[in-house]
């Protein structure tokens, strides 16, 4: 098909010349193939960004503009009035705070309990260690949706519905977090903890002063994932909280949607406000998040 010549050496200079990471120098047809690929990819990327861009464009238009042409992209006199109204009249500020508090506490409790349990499973030798580990792992198979009725009843009986704890507590037993921590702890050399043990340190101290400080990558991975997952969780907070003041952001946005009178521009402003926190998280932690996902099952 195409004639190919091999790049002389796999050096930086060679890959700079060939312009790709494979160190293969492309002949004419191959360059065309690359250009077509890039073109298709760019078109798709724009298609993927279009809904978000449209929401953004709609959210800064005036009601008059929307009435004349509901799907136009450009506003002649862009305005932030929609945002002001949504933030001022609605409960979005409360929802931000509620979401932040519940997600942060869920994350904190998950990291503490899961890492402690994982430490015991990784370092301590006790009877039934393996059965206990297997039992915990089996929890992965239980879909949280199956548990919504008993959770609801438990929190109803204890009078905790419509509190932060109702949102937080059922999300804490996170089996995947235990697994991630245990995998990481298993990789920490035994000699390190043994030496501390020989010096008379207690296991709790070893956990807190040796193992946890070494486990920053695992801690940050679990923190990011539990936080994002808890922030986005919908079905459980929907059931646990009915008081609009106590709702989390995702649940609250549904009530915005139910409020029929709200104009399109304000709805889109709400959507943009709902999207902002996690888009920001993503921009800051892009590498960690992507690596975390990529690492989940491949290793």
């Amino acid at each position: 098909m195409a004639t190919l010549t091999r790049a002389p050496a796999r050096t930086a200079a060679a890959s700079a010349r060939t312009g790709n990471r494979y160190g293969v120098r492309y002949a004419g047809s191959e360059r065309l193939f690359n250009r077509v690929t890039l073109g298709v990819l760019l078109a798709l990327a724009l298609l993927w960004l279009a809904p978000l861009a449209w929401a953004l464009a709609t959210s800064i238009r005036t009601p008059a503009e929307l009435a004349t042409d509901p799907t136009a992209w450009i506003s002649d006199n862009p305005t932030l009035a929609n945002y002001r109204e949504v933030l001022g009249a609605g409960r979005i500020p409360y929802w931000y705070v509620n979401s932040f508090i519940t997600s942060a506490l869920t994350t904190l409790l998950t990291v503490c309990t899961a890492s402690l349990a994982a430490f015991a499973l990784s370092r301590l030798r006790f009877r039934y260690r393996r059965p206990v580990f297997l039992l915990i792992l089996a929890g992965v198979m239980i879909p949280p949706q199956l548990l919504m009725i008993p959770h609801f009843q438990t929190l109803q009986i204890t009078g905790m519905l419509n509190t932060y704890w109702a949102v937080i507590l059922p999300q804490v037993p996170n089996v995947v977090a235990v697994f991630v921590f245990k995998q990481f702890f298993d990789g920490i050399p035994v000699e390190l903890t043994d030496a501390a043990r020989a010096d008379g340190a207690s296991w709790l101290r070893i956990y807190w002063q040796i193992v946890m400080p070494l486990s920053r990558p695992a801690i940050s991975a679990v923190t990011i994932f539990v936080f994002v997952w808890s922030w986005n969780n919908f079905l459980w907070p929907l059931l646990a909280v009915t008081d609009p003041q106590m709702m989390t952001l995702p649940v609250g946005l549904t009530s915005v949607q139910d409020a029929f009178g709200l104009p399109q521009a304000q709805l889109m402003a709400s959507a943009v406000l709902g999207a902002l926190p996690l888009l920001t998280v993503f921009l800051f932690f892009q590498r960690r998040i992507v690596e975390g996902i990529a690492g989940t099952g491949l290793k």
Partner: protein
Amino acid sequence: MSATTTTTAPAARPAAEPAPRHTTGSGRWTASGMLLPFGAFYVVFLLGPLVYTGIAGFFNGSLVKGGLGSWVGLENYRQALGSADFWSSLGHTIWFTVLTTVPLILIALALALMTDRVSRGKWFFRLAFFAPFMLPSSVISLLFMWIYADEIGLAGSVAKLLGVDAPPSWLGDPNWAMISIAAATVWWTVGFNFVIYLAALQEIPREVHEAAAIDGAGPWQRLRLVVVPMLGRATTLVAVLQLVASLKVFDQIYMMTNGGPDDVTRPSLLYVYQTGFTDGRAGYASTVALLLFVIILLISLVWFALIRRTEKEA
């Protein structure tokens, strides 16, 4: 096991000294103490509720009165398995799964293969395809309810641009509602699979590409004969995760159509939700939830076995 491991390891410590990491006596209490916080949450919010769901299915409990209610034996199971609503909701779940799983694998693969070839600006494509995945389901629903809105929605105006004179009511037409929701879901979640594929492509050694190129394979041939077959493991992972996720669909359907029009988009989980929380029939809903769990488990196992087999043959 204690003695053998200590002796086989190059003696860093005297063999006579008992291996410190083996716990005895008070150590056992340490282990229990460390497991306790997680264990308590696990028992109260995972294991206990699971057992309770299993038991509640044999009673006619209601959410209004609380408690288990009175014993009805297999009545709930008989009712669920004989209910047309139960089976049709399962059918809708499977239809949604078919509509999403296949495109979510193929599109993610195609996007990753193309992105992998780009030499500069990869971050841009990663951002564009992955960013929607980070958004809460309610933002997605809010957005797409307007995109799909009759007369004034973006989808309708794009369809008109493409020459469709009378675009359907995307979420109101029984023939289109599920397809529309599936399309929004593909847009929303493809980023996750895309990232897994991208990582798998990164792991393919450069030598493989070089060798194939030297042998005279063109770009298309290299793709088809070398690269794609090496993505087997990633595909297994993506397919299994995707299937399980799709079978549990709830959020976007609850918000965009609430199962309508005429219940044609009502998935199983929404049926559980409606019988449990709208009708208040906790016992019956527990039965349906448990049946759903068993069915999802069976489908996943069969699916997993199928993938494993084709992977071996490939």
